[in-house]
C-alpha cells in the first residue's frame, strides 16, 4: 500500500542501507541503546570518540543546557583504542549496520597508529577523523582550524589505513569551512562529516562561575541547525562531488530532509539520541514518511536538490 522508497546511499566507498547514522559521542558504543531501538535499522553507527590511550575525561559538570541546545565538555572519556577493539567491537561485528570508528589524537602519529589498529581489526567499516574536539586543552590551536594540519592528518590516516573508507569530521569554529573541506579532500578524505560542535560557554550568574568544569564546551542541538545547514550547503556548492554526512540539531525527519536538500548524502543524529534513545530510527521513519508524502521513490534524488 505505502510506496517503496529506495534509501541506500553511498558515502564515498561506504554503502549505507539508509542515510541515517548516529553521531559520535552521543551513542556510546551502540549497545547501550539496544533496549530502545533495533540497531540494524540504522545506516550506520559512529561510536564514542577514541584516543590511543584510555582517557578519564574532564572534571564535572560536563554538560549544561542552553536555549534549544546543550554544551558538553566530556573531554573524550573513552576506553582507549585497544580496549575498544577487544571489548566494544566484538558485539557489533554480527550486526548488519556500518560501524564507524571516530578517532582523536594529540599528534599526527597517534591518528596514524589508531587508524592502523582499527583497519587491522575486523568489523570497522569506516574511520571518522575528529580534527575538531574543542574541549581538550592541548596547549595549542585545534588541528581543525588549520588547513595544512587537516591535510597532514588525513594523509597520514589514509596511508595507515589504505583500503578504509575515510571521513573527516570538520570543526565549525573556522572562518572558511570550504577551505578546510578542500584541505581534507586534498589529504584523501572520501567524505566529510559536517559539523562538530561550536565552542561556547555557559555562566551561572548566581555563583559567578562557568557552569562547566572545563569552562568552555561544545554547543550542539537544535540551536546550531541553521549554522550547520549553512556549512553543508556552502561545502556542497563548492564541491558537489564530495559526499557529506550532515549533522547539527537533527531531531526529526524533516530536519534530516533539510540537510539532504542542502547537499548531505547521509545525516547523523546526535543530541537527539540523548533525549530520546530511539531518536535515530524515529528520524529514519520521518524521512521515509516525507518521501512517501512527496512521491520520492529514491532518496538520492533529494541530495542537493535545494532550489535556489
Amino acid at each position, binding site marked *: 500500500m505505502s510506496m517503496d522508497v529506495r534509501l541506500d546511499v553511498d558515502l564515498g566507498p561506504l554503502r549505507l542501507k539508509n542515510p541515517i547514522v548516529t553521531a559520535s559521542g552521543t551513542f556510546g558504543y551502540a549497545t*547501550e*541503546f539496544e533496549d530502545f531501538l533495533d540497531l540494524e535499522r540504522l545506516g550506520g553507527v559512529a561510536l*564514542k570518540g577514541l584516543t590511543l590511550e584510555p582517557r578519564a575525561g574532564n572534571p564535572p559538570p*560536563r*554538560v549544561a543546557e542552553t536555549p534549544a541546545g546543550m554544551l558538553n565538555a566530556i573531554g573524550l*572519556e573513552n576506553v582507549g583504542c585497544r580496549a575498544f577493539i577487544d571489548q566494544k567491537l566484538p558485539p557489533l561485528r554480527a550486526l548488519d549496520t556500518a560501524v564507524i570508528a571516530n578517532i582523536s589524537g594529540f599528534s599526527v602519529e597517534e591518528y596514524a597508529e589508531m587508524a592502523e589498529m582499527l583497519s587491522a581489526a575486523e568489523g570497522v567499516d569506516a574511520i571518522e577523523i575528529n580534527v575538531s574536539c574543542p574541549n581538550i586543552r592541548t596547549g595549542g590551536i585545534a588541528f581543525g582550524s588549520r588547513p595544512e594540519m587537516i591535510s597532514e592528518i588525513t594523509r597520514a590516516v589514509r596511508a595507515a589505513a589504505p583500503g578504509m573508507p575515510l571521513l573527516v569530521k570538520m570543526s565549525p569554529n573556522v572562518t572558511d569551512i570550504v577551505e578546510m573541506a578542500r584541505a581534507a579532500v586534498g589529504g584523501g578524505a572520501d567524505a566529510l562529516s559536517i559539523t562538530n560542535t561550536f565552542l561556547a560557554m555557559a555562566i551561572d550568574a548566581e555563583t559567578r562561575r562557568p557552569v562547566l568544569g572545563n569552562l568552555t564546551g561544545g554547543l550542539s542541538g537544535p540551536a546550531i541547525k541553521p549554522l550547520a545547514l549553512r556549512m553543508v550547503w556552502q561545502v556542497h556548492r563548492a564541491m558537489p562531488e564530495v559526499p557529506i554526512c550532515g549533522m547539527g540539531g537533527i531531531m526529526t525527519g524533516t530536519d534530516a530532509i533539510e540537510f539532504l536538500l542542502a547537499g548531505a548524502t547521509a545525516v547523523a543524529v546526535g543530541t537527539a539520541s540523548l533525549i530520546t534513545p530511539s531518536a535515530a530510527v524515529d528520524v529514519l521513519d520521518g524521512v521515509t514518511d516525507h518521501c512517501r508524502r512527496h512521491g520520492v521513490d529514491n532518496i538520492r534524488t533529494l541530495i542537493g536538490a535545494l532550489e535556489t
Partner: protein
Amino acid sequence: MTPSTRHCTLAPVIANREVAPAIFEMRLRASEIAAAAQPGQFVHLRVKSGLDPLLRRPLSIGAVEGEHICLLFRVIGHGTQLLSRVVPGETLDLLGPLGNPFTLHADRPAVLVAGGMGIADMPLLARRLREAGCPAIHLIFGARTAAELAWTDRVEAEGAQIHTATDDGSAGHHGVCTALLPPLLREIDARPAICACGPEPMFRAILSAVTDPAIPIQLAFEQRMGCGIGACMACAVETSKGYLRACCEGPVLDGALLR
C-alpha cells in the same frame, strides 16, 4: 540494573500537588516502571515535548503504589518550575527505571540519612527493607526548616523511627542532621547499614563519622545528566576508581569509593 527492565513510556499524570513550600509530589501511572523499580533508581523525564527544556530531568522514584509511581521534587530552576505546573490529564515522557539501586542489607538495622530532597529516595527504600525483614529502620532527615520535612509520614508508615534536624531549629535537632548519626549508632546494638541521599557535604560528614569498615555505606549521587543510560559520559562522579557514571554505575555508589 537489568537493562531489559528499562522502558520509555508516556505516563499520564494522576496528581501533582505542592506538599511543602516549592516542593511538589507528582503521581503518574507507569505500570512497567512501577513493576520494575528498585529503591535508589530514577526516572529520566521530559518536562515538555518541545525544545524548551531540551534535556530530560532525572528524579528519584520515591514511592510505588500499584501501577503508580510517586515523585517528590523541589522547584529549583526552569525545568522543575514547568513541572510544577503540569496538571492531571497531561502525560509525561518517562525513561526508567534507571541506575544502580541500593543493595538491601536486610539482616541488619538500617540507617537512612536524607538531606533535603534526598528524602525522595526513602519511602521506597524503607518499604523494600521492611518487606525483606529488616530488623529496624531509622531515618535521619535534615531540612532547612520544619515545613520542608516532607514525606516523613511515608517513611514512618513503613515502620521507621524518625530523627529530624532543621537548619533553623524549627523542628528536631537544631543543626545538621549528620550530628544525629553518632549517638544513633551508639544506641543501635548491631552494626547497621547506612543508605544516604543528599548533598555532598553530608556525604563527607557521614564518611568521617563512620569509620568502621564493617558498616556498609551507600551514597546516592546527583549529577547533571545527558542520556541517563550510560552512553554520553556526562554524569561523571569522581571516585577512587576514577570517574564513574551516576546514571548507571550510580546513582548509588559504595561509600568506600568516596573515602
